[in-house]
């Protein structure tokens, strides 16, 4: 070691930025890093490309030869033969004529065609009603429309006297009035009143009142029976009702399962485990076959309504489990802080616990919604005309006998759009709410 090494160094000139060596940029580099980095990856890439080619070769010509103008499968096949779109298995081309001809039916079922405007308007109103719930930028006042929407929708779709709907809605006003009016007597009394008074009203006051009003002022629109409901309209009715009803019920059962009251906990656990333990289809059969045994002799109410109840109960059990997971993920300190500030159980739940638990469980909740919407197809087994039921009905018609893929693709695509948008929205929501934290 010599002392004479000069350790001082001062840079006098800054280096300019330089471009990397050419072999490391652009498409070549990308391909090498993402597709051919290693033997295994190269094999996978080649296999994937082969698979894509095989799929395109199998489906491509079939799609390319699509025929939109035909009134029957045989006519379509004639056109295809004439155009030379034939392979060894016969004609090779998609016959979209069935969609062109039958799409109103796939959307609305056997709803009277001159009344198609009613479900259409209801659907548009649905988009408006859910907008403020989905997007915070929509004015909050639209929420009042959202609250009124269920009644509007029922009136528009089922038709009949307007008083049935209005007097039914009155029950909720009575409940709300009881909640605020009895607030002075304590939360428990007010809640009990808010539950009991509307139920009593619906059991005993509703029908006479609406009948009376209808007799005085017979205002209404043409009624449509639910046996005419069908197609995606039916799927959306069942799915949306199930979604809207199962969330609050799910919260209640999740809280029930967490309760330290033995009876409440047992009831919740038995309900949740029973519903989760049996296939939805058995519940639907219960709705269609067994409900007549359990209700007073002579009662017979709408099959669609029964299905909605069963689907809701089914989704409720799953929802409860999802929300319970969210509750379990909350630190104990949150409960303690709420207690220490003097918030009572329901206020603590509403203001502190639920907002956080629900946020944690968003992915699970939306997955339950998606599952519920997909499960609406099961109603075909009890004879309701959902899109899949209609597909069979269309095939039963001699003109379209033997048509499968076009119908499946159309139905699948519509379901896919709904479910995929829901899952994307949930991701968006998670990101949006995440800004709350660091």
């Amino acid at each position, binding site marked *: 070691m010599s002392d004479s090494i000069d350790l001082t160094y001062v840079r006098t000139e800054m280096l300019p930025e330089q471009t990397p060596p050419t072999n490391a940029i652009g498409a070549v580099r990308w391909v090498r*890093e*993402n*597709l051919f*980095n290693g033997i295994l*990856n190269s094999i*996978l*890439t080649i296999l*994937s*490309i082969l*698979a*894509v080619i095989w799929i395109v070769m199998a489906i491509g010509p079939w799609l390319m030869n699509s025929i939109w103008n035909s009134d029957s499968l045989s006519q379509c096949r004639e056109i295809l033969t004439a155009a030379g779109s034939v392979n*060894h298995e016969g004609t090779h081309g998609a016959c979209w004529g069935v969609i062109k001809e039958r799409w109103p039916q796939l959307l609305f079922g056997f709803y009277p065609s001159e009344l198609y405007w009613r479900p259409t308007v209801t659907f548009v109103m649905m988009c408006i009603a859910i907008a403020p719930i989905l997007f915070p930028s929509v004015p909050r006042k639209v929420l009042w429309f959202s609250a009124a929407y269920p009644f509007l929708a029922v009136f528009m779709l089922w038709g009949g006297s307007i008083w049935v709907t209005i007097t039914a809605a009155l029950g909720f006003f009575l409940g709300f009035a009881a909640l605020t009016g009895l607030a002075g007597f*304590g939360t*428990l*009394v007010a809640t009990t009143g808010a539950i009991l008074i509307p139920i009593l009203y619906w059991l005993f006051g509703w029908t006479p009142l609406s009948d009376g009003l209808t007799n005085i002022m017979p205002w209404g629109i043409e009624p449509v029976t639910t046996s005419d409901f069908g197609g995606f309209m039916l799927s959306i009715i069942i799915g949306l009702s199930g979604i809207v009803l199962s969330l609050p019920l799910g919260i209640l059962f999740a809280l029930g399962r967490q309760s*330290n*009251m*033995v*009876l*409440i906990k047992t*009831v919740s656990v038995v309900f949740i*485990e*029973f519903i*989760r*333990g*049996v*296939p*939805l*289809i*058995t519940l639907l*059969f*219960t709705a269609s*076959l*067994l409900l*007549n*045994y*359990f*209700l*007073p*002799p002579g009662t017979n109410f709408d099959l669609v309504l029964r299905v909605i109840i069963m689907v809701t109960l089914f989704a409720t059990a799953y929802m409860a489990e999802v929300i319970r997971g969210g509750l379990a993920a909350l630190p104990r300190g949150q409960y303690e802080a709420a207690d220490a500030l003097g918030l009572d159980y329901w206020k603590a739940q509403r203001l502190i616990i639920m907002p956080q638990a629900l946020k944690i469980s968003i992915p699970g909740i939306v997955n339950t919604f*998606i599952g519920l919407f*997909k*499960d609406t*197809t*099961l109603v*075909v*087994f009890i004879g309701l005309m959902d899109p*899949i039921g209609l597909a069979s009905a269309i095939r039963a018609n001699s003109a379209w006998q*033997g048509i*499968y*893929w076009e119908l*499946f693709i159309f*139905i*699948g695509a519509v*379901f*896919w759009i709904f*479910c*995929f948008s829901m*899952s994307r929205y949930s991701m968006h929501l998670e990101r949006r709410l995440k800004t709350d934290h660091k």
Partner: protein
Amino acid sequence: MAMDSGAPKESFRLSMLLYDSRYRSYTIQIFVLFCLMLGAAWLVDNTIKNLAALGKDFSFSFLWNVSGYDISQRPIEYTSTSTHARAAIVGLTNTIILAVMGCVTATVLGVLAGVLRLSTNWIVARLMTIYIETFRNIPALLWILVFGAVMAEAMPAPRDFRGADATASMSLFDSVAITNRGVYVPGPLFDRSLGSVDLGFISPSLDALAFIVVVILSIWANKRLVNHATAVQNATGIRPVTWWKSILTLFVPAILLLLALGFHLEYPALRGFNFSGGIQLRSSLIAMWLGLSVYTAAFIAENVRAGIMAISTGQSEAAAALGMQPGKTMRLVILPQAMRVIIPPLISQYLNLTKNTSLGLAVGYMDLRSTLGGITINQTGRELEGMMLMMLIYLVLSLLISSAMNVYNNRVKLKER
């Protein structure tokens, strides 16, 4: 202890039922119990009245009547003169067969797709994303119908295999025939069969039983071998090489047994207008199996991906910093943690798949729902009893699966603390 500290003894007031934590929960529970009893009484009363009005009683004796219908897929002996109970058991067996087949395939496909979706290979990851998003977002029933239609419409009829100008041919060295009636695969035959034992209710084949016993014994022996290796490692620090011993213990006894029984395969062959010989997997089974497998696999793939991603990179860095090789890091650090995240949702997917087997009716698969919950109910008019029994059976199946999950959860939970 010191209760006599002059605490003002309050007399009981009615409002204490609601505002005293000692009584409040009892008040609420008694109220709920009252409502529940009322509701239950109302339901039972209605049911009794309705049954009386229909002139029916409540009895399960119909189960012992002759069923009078055929079931195409019969894993155990069954004819149309068998009882409804036996039909239900055939259905249940079919449900279980489908569920087991589906779970195995869905797991393999799902793990593969989940791992590949995390691949750095752009095209593979994209393809897997497309697969997962497509299958997850379209109803299972539609997929079952699609696979049903593929089997029924796109597959050749047995007669297409005939003659010199056959348009279809058998696959896999002429051993498998895929037709629109189902898939015919080679079946096992034994020259020196042990026969079967008649238990009255079912008559299982002794060959199969012997095979199962030998496999279980081999697995047990292998486990002892591995335990011994671990013991040696713990004592000396050096793990003896066991892989070839493991292979020998696992496979040689089974192969010896098969040789002793004179095992050979029976290949399906075209006789007349149909295939015979081997095992026929009916179109309905294939459609259900494929439909449920690829549908559930898409969900499993997402669980697997989430499980792997849940393990922070810190864990592999920590293991690497301790000088562990990648293989050991995976086996000893990453996998045990990832499994803890993956297994619970995996088992609930099994549960879903098992429940979805009840969609069998869509393609005519004769599962529990189609036998007991379908034809039997229609023929006997015993909706109430039939549905209750069916729900009970499904419930027991589900509870068995979820108790397996609970056992697993408790085991990993114990390890955690």
